[in-house]
């Protein structure tokens, strides 16, 4: 066979060898087939540890309770006890070291997430006390009148209903907060 056949072949073989050599250096050692097989487990194993190392920002209400036990307990007796502290107080991160104080979200927008009245008859939303944000003191912050840590004083509510002659509480029925678990 003549040179015109061998020469391009040599080049092709050299290129393949080059790719294979480069591959051994460039592909990480832990890249390969892992537990989930060739179809789903072909990856760099070290990446799993990278995902595990992401910083936890929300430390959960249980960790808040470790120091703020009094607050946690009084809150637990109210309908808002089901809400995680960090939903309003912001992620704790490494509080109290960093940040020393948390930024509390007291905005109307936050309350409206649950308390804007919506026509959603077949969801739990229908059994939460709701207001029309456009007519219910639109300029005011909710916290001016409502204490987020103690939103409903049940006795007062019952008394006002009694005075108004309402039986069986509001239209939502006796179970004002059936979602509290």
């Amino acid at each position, binding site marked *: 066979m003549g040179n015109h056949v061998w020469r391009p072949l040599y080049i092709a073989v050299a290129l393949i060898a080059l790719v294979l050599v480069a591959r051994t250096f460039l592909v990480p050692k832990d890249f390969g*087939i892992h537990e989930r097989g060739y179809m789903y487990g072909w990856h760099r194993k070290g990446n799993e540890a990278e995902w595990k190392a992401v910083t936890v920002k929300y430390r959960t209400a249980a960790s808040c309770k470790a120091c703020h036990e009094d607050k946690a307990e009084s809150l637990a007796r109210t309908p808002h006890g089901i809400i995680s502290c960090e939903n309003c107080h912001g992620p704790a991160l490494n509080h109290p070291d960093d940040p020393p104080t948390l930024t509390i979200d007291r905005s109307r927008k936050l309350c409206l997430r649950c308390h804007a009245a919506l026509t959603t008859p077949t969801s739990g939303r229908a059994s939460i006390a709701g207001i029309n944000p456009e007519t219910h003191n639109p300029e005011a912050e909710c916290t001016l009148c409502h204490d987020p840590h103690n939103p409903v004083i049940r006795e007062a509510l019952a008394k006002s209903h009694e005075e108004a002659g309402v039986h069986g509480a509001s239209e939502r029925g006796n179970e004002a907060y059936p*979602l509290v678990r």
Partner: protein
Amino acid sequence: MNRRDFLKNSITVIAGLAVPLSALELISPRKLLATKGDESPVRWAFLVDTQACVGCGFCVKACKTENEIPHETNITRTWVERYVVTRKGKTYVDSPRGARDGFTTDRIDQGEEGFREVKAEEIEKAFFVPKLCNQCDNPACVQVCPVGATYQTPDGVVLVDRKHCIGCAYCIMACPYGVRSFNPAYKTAEKCTFCYHRISQGMKTACVDACPFGARKIGNLRDPDDPVTKTIMSGRVGVLKEQYGTKPQVYYLALSREVK
């Protein structure tokens, strides 16, 4: 060159060309065998109670903060959809900004068509459905990745290797649930990790912890005493788009037929 040589050489060249480059990677049978059999003691699964969801969107907010997803972009790893079904059988769905700020108005966001108002007396049913990655047992998104950047962990979570992802977006196209997006900061595919950093150290996901109503739960399918596993095994649960054969591992209680 005589005829015999010519035929011989032709066959050699054709045989050589038939060997693709990928075949040069040697797969040891031992390695393949090792992938069978030894089952991981953990298989994460998720349970969503659509009846309990009130559309507050705390889960979306917590997810975005926990996983450092740019707050002002529309991409989000989890979102909440509102379904409004009229008495005439029309279904309207919306999820403004993925419900990052919850649902605060009855107007349904129809995107370019503007807002739609449905009269209260016309509404047959209306409810909320949280969505997130289904961490499928047969993840279509993993199969299409050309560079091995997305994969399934032994405990069933599908992750993206941000160092290997080339941002080709095949996986975003392949996911039948539309849970993948493109992260503008990393220029890679973005998806729910079931908060892998939290669940792998015994915590719950950020969305589960943020949900005041217990609409979201996470559990280990390989633990028969896990309350979530019990509900999935014995309760009346549904999954999304079962017909795709992806074997999704996010189970829904009270799933309505309108939900796709």
